[in-house]
C-alpha cells in the first residue's frame, strides 16, 4: 500500500499507466497475436522521440521560456549532410557521425549565441535559427534522398535479442542523461537555473556556461536522432524532422517534467514516447479517421496531465 502511494506521487507514473492501457487495448483487437510486433515497433519508433525528447528536457529544465524549436531542422540538416558525406560507403560511417555531431554543436552554439547576444527569448531565437538551418539543409543537396551505408541501414533496422538496436541506443543515452541529472554537479546546476536564474547566479553557478552546454547538448542529440532516423528510414528527407517539433515537447511535459523548469525526469520520457506512438497505433487499429484520431489524442493527453497534475511535488 505504502509503495503504491509512493509510486502514485512519482510524476512519471501516469504516462506509464497510460502506456499499458493503450498497449493492452491495441493487442486485444487481435487477441494478443500482435503483442510482439507491436511492442517492437513501439520501442523502435519511440526511440527517436526519446533521444530528441531528452535533449529537449534538458533545455526545458532551464526554466520558463526555454525550449528548442530548432530540433526538427537540426535533425534534417544532420541527416542530409551526413548521408551525403557517407554516400553509401561503409567506410565513412564514423566521419558521418562526427559531422552530424559537429552540426549539432554548431547549431547549439548559434542558438545560445543568439539568445545571449541579442537577449531574445529562446523560443524566438531557436525558431529563427530553425528557418536558417532548414535553408541550409535545402541548400546542401536540395532534398535528394541518398541511401545510408549498408551496415548502418542494417544496424538501425535490426535488433539484438529481440530488442531493436535503436532502442538500445536510446536506453544508453537515457542512462547517461539520468546520471547527469541525478548525480552530477551539472544536473544540479541546470535544475537550480531552472528554478531561479538570479539565485543560481548568486550561488556562484556559471550560468551562461551551463545554459550554453545544455543548448549544445540538445542540438547534438537532435543531430544524432536525425542521423539515426535517416539511416533507419533509408535516406534523409527535408521534412523528416517536422513531426518531432511538437513531439519532443509533448513527451517531455507528458513525462512529468515541470514546464516551469527545475524538475526533470528520464523515465517519464520513455513512458510518454511509447504512449504517443501507441496511441496513434491504437486509433489506427480501431480504424478511426484522422479527425477522431486527433481529437482522441488530444483528449488523452489532457486526461494524462489531469491525472498527473494537481499533485504536490515531493521534496527532491
Amino acid at each position, binding site marked *: 500500500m505504502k509503495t503504491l502511494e509512493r509510486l502514485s506521487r512519482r510524476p512519471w507514473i501516469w504516462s506509464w499507466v497510460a502506456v499499458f492501457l493503450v498497449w493492452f487495448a491495441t493487442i486485444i483487437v487481435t487477441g494478443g497475436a500482435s503483442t510482439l510486433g507491436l511492442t517492437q515497433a513501439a520501442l523502435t519508433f519511440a526511440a527517436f522521440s526519446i533521444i530528441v525528447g531528452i535533449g529537449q528536457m534538458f533545455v526545458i529544465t532551464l526554466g520558463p521560456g526555454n525550449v528548442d524549436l530548432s530540433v526538427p531542422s537540426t535533425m534534417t540538416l544532420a541527416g542530409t549532410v551526413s548521408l551525403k558525406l557517407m554516400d553509401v560507403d561503409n567506410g565513412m560511417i564514423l566521419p558521418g557521425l562526427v559531422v552530424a555531431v559537429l552540426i549539432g554543436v554548431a547549431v547549439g552554439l548559434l542558438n545560445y549565441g543568439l539568445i545571449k547576444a541579442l537577449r531574445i527569448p529562446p523560443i524566438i531565437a531557436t525558431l529563427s535559427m530553425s528557418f536558417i538551418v532548414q535553408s541550409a539543409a535545402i541548400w546542401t543537396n536540395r532534398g535528394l534522398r541518398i541511401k545510408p551505408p549498408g551496415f548502418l541501414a542494417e544496424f538501425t533496422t535490426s535488433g539484438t535479442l529481440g530488442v531493436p538496436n535503436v532502442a538500445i541506443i536510446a536506453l544508453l543515452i537515457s542512462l547517461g542523461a539520468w546520471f547527469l541529472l541525478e548525480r552530477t554537479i551539472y544536473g544540479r546546476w541546470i535544475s537550480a537555473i531552472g528554478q531561479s536564474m538570479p*539565485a543560481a547566479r548568486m550561488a556562484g553557478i556559471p550560468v551562461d556556461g551551463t545554459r550554453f552546454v545544455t543548448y549544445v547538448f540538445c542540438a547534438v542529440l537532435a543531430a544524432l536522432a536525425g542521423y539515426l532516423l535517416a539511416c533507419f528510414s533509408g535516406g534523409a528527407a527535408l521534412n523528416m524532422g517536422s513531426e518531432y517539433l511538437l513531439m519532443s515537447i509533448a513527451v517531455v511535459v507528458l513525462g512529468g517534467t515541470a514546464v516551469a523548469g527545475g524538475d526533470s525526469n528520464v523515465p517519464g520520457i520513455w513512458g510518454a514516447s511509447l504512449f504517443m506512438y501507441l496511441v496513434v497505433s491504437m486509433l489506427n487499429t480501431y480504424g478511426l479517421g484522422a479527425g477522431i484520431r486527433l481529437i482522441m489524442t488530444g483528449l488523452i493527453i489532457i486526461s494524462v496531465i489531469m491525472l498527473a497534475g494537481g499533485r504536490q511535488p515531493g521534496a*527532491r
Partner: protein
Amino acid sequence: MTGNGSKAVIEVADAKVSFGAVKALDGVTLAIMPGECLGLVGHNGAGKSTIVSVINGGLTPHQGSICGDGEILARYGINAARARGVRCVFQELSLCPNLTVIENARVLHRHLGGFGWRTRAKEVVERSLDAVFPGHGIASDRTVGDLSIAERQMVEIAMAFSDAGTTPRLIILDEPTSSLDASLADRLLAHIRRFVAAGGSVIFISHILHEILTTANRIVVMKDGRIVAERPAAVWTEQSLVEAMGSVVKGEAHRRKARDLADAPVVVEQTGRGMPFRARRGEIVGLAGLAGHGQTRMLMKLHATASADWLPRRDPAIAFVAGDRRLNGIFELWSILKNLSIASLGDLAVRGVVNSGAETERAGEWKRRIEIRTPDMANRILSLSGGNQQKVLFARALSTRAPVVLMDDPMRGVDVGTKQEVYEIVRQEAAQGRTFVWYSTEMEEVCLCDRVYVFREGAIVAELAGDAVTEENILAASFRAEAA
C-alpha cells in the same frame, strides 16, 4: 472575555494550525482591542505569521473560533476580514510588480471599481502615502517593479492604512520595518501611534525590539506555536523580552576590539563615483547609509566581477548571502539539503559526481551549528519559516571556501538569538582570515564592523574606521549630503 468593557475587534480563541508534523499554532488565544497597538515577538518560526494569516482570513484554523465585535464569525474568510476593516502588510512583499502603484491600489480595494476609478485610486493612495511618509517622493503612476525595496514597502504600508470605502480598523504589520532605514521606520512608528490614538488597532510584529517597546501598548511573546507571555509594554524591557523568547541573553552585542589591519592584503577593490571601495583580508566591512542608496547594487557589482559566468571556478572567489531570498536566494523546488550545498558542490564532488554521503554530513553539521529548525534536512525549503530559510542561505555561503563573503542585509527576519550566533560565527571566520562585506539596515550590525563605508545616492561619501564607527557618525554622514 477581556473584561474591560469594550469589545475586541477580532478575537481568536484556541486556534490550532499544523502543517504536516509542524504545529505552527498550538492553541493560541488572542484578542485585539480598539485603540491599542499589540506587539508580537518571538523567535523565527514561532508562529507569528501564521496567526496573522488566521486573523486575516487567509488561513482557516483546524480548530478554534474567531469572534469579531463580540459575535462568533462562522464563515470567516479574506473578504469577511476585509469587510470588517482588517488589513495586512505581509512579511514578504506582496504587490504586483508589473502594475503601477495606482493599479495595485485597485487590486487591493475591491470596491474601488466603476468609471473613473483611476482618479479615485490615485487620490486614495497619495493621501495615505502623504499621511504615513510625508515627503516620500513616490509618483503614484510608477510601476512598482521600478521602485526600490524600501519604496515598495512604503507603498504597501500606505495601502494598508488607506481608506477607500471601508475604514481600516485593524492593521497587521508583519515586520514592516525590515527594509526601511531608521528615519523611515520612525515615521511609520509615529503614524502607528497616531492611528492608535485615533481609535484604530494595530498588530505589530518585529524582531527589532526597541521598536516594539516604544510603539506597542501591550506585548505578546510567542514561542513554538504558543503564547508564553503577555504584559503591558511598559513593564517589558529588551532584556526581559529576549528572556521570554527563550534566547540566552548575550548582553549588548559587544564590539570586537579594534584591530589594525592596515598591513593585510587587499582582497577586493572597486572604484566608481565617490570614494573607492577596498576590503582587506580578515576584515569586516560595513556598508551603511539610508536604504536603497546603492549598497545592494555595489554588492551585485562586486559579485559579478569576481564570479564566473561561463566556466566553473575551481576555487570560489566570492560568496553571497541574499537579502531578498525569494528573488535571488532560495530554490523553491528543492530540499533544505540541496539548497544548502549548492554553492559548495565543488568540494563535495569527485570529477563532477556529487558524493551524497559527504553532502548529507556537511548539511547535518550546519544544521547543528546554526540550528535550522526542521525535523529533516530532506524537507522542502519552503517548509521553513522565513528566518530559518535565511539561516540556510547563511550556511550556504559560509560553507564555501570563498575568501570573501558579501552579505545583502542578511538578518532580515532573523530572530535575536540566531543573530547573536551568526555574529559570533562571522567574528570567528573573520579572525581566520575571511573577509566580510556587510550591508545592513540595522545600526547595531553596522557597528560590529571594522570599517564602514557610508552610501549616499549611489556613491560612497564617507569612510569610518575603528572607534569612529558609531551610530552618530554614520547618521551624520548619511545626512550630510542632504544638508549640503
